[in-house]
């Protein structure tokens, strides 16, 4: 590498062209205009905001789930559909619009896992044994405001346990 010391020294004498005043001003403006944003999104605060928004999201999702139960059909006990996306479009005329003008537009339930947990018996064995099947699903509800064109989509995981009476003959 010593062979190159002379050429390296010559290269170091070359001075890169300076940056323009315009670029300096633009960067300065960017740094200045984002000071407040950077302060808001400091790492510790961001973590607090995350928990706060997570809690709010969960609360909102819970409320919507309760609300959405009104639109949900219970899956048939005997023949649940597996791994099939069901898109049940709800006619807009059947449900009156809520205060915001949003109407239920669609409800989708995707079963992505089915676990057969076998037979279960009641403690006193007085009743029939039951087969317990657990379904992991993701349900998505959509609302649409026909006047403004705005749409609202809520998706949440759900778990459903189906108990089927078993008879031995």
């Amino acid at each position, binding site marked *: *590498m010593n062979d*190159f010391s*002379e*050429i*390296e020294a*010559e*290269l*170091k*004498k*070359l*001075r*890169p*062209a*300076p*940056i*323009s005043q*315009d*670029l*300096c001003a*633009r*960067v*300065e403006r*960017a*740094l*200045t205009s*984002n*000071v407040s*944003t*950077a302060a808001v999104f400091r*790492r510790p605060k961001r973590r607090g905001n995350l928990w706060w928004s997570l809690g709010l999201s969960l609360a909102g999702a819970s409320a919507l789930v309760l609300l959405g139960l009104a639109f949900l059909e219970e899956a048939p006990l005997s023949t649940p559909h597996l791994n099939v996306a069901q898109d049940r479009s709800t006619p807009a005329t059947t449900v009156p619009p809520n205060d915001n003008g949003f109407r239920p537009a669609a409800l989708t339930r995707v079963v992505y896992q089915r676990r057969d947990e076998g037979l279960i018996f009641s403690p006193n064995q007085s009743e029939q044994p039951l087969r317990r099947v657990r379904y992991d699903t993701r349900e998505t509800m959509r609302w649409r405001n026909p006047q403004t064109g705005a749409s609202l989509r809520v998706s949440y995981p759900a778990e459903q346990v189906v108990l089927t009476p078993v008879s031995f003959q």
Partner: protein
Amino acid sequence: MASVLTEEDWKSCFTQLGPALLLFARRWTHSRVEAEDIVQEAFVRFWRRQHSIENRALLYATVRSTALDRLRSDQRRARREATVARDGATHCEPQFTDLDESQQVLAAAVERLPDEQREVVILKIWNELTFAEIASVLEISQNTAASRYRYALATLRKTLQPHE
């Protein structure tokens, strides 16, 4: 430990590093205006992520990724830039200032270097990065970085020999 830099510190850093950053950014564009846009976007992005200014390799990697993002976002321009680079067109605007006659020859030789060699030389000479840092910025091995550097200097030395 990285200390908390004030806005003035960042401005000062930019004033100090700006010319070398600009030189590096012109690897991807022959337009000074576009190079300035790349440098501005990269520096502000680096600052927003609150990286340590001492992490020079990361700063240059940010410039590189910003430049590549811009090229990818506009395929037509990317093709044009690639064509210009492939044809070895000379830069229309000088990248160095205050040059005497022999320095002008050297600067022209630097600009004629293949892109992958020139960027290593720029990072090594004017940005004083180590080969490890250069390798990290360019996502190549240290040996590759070092060999590109050696090839480049050998070429430059050969270019200058008849004039010495």
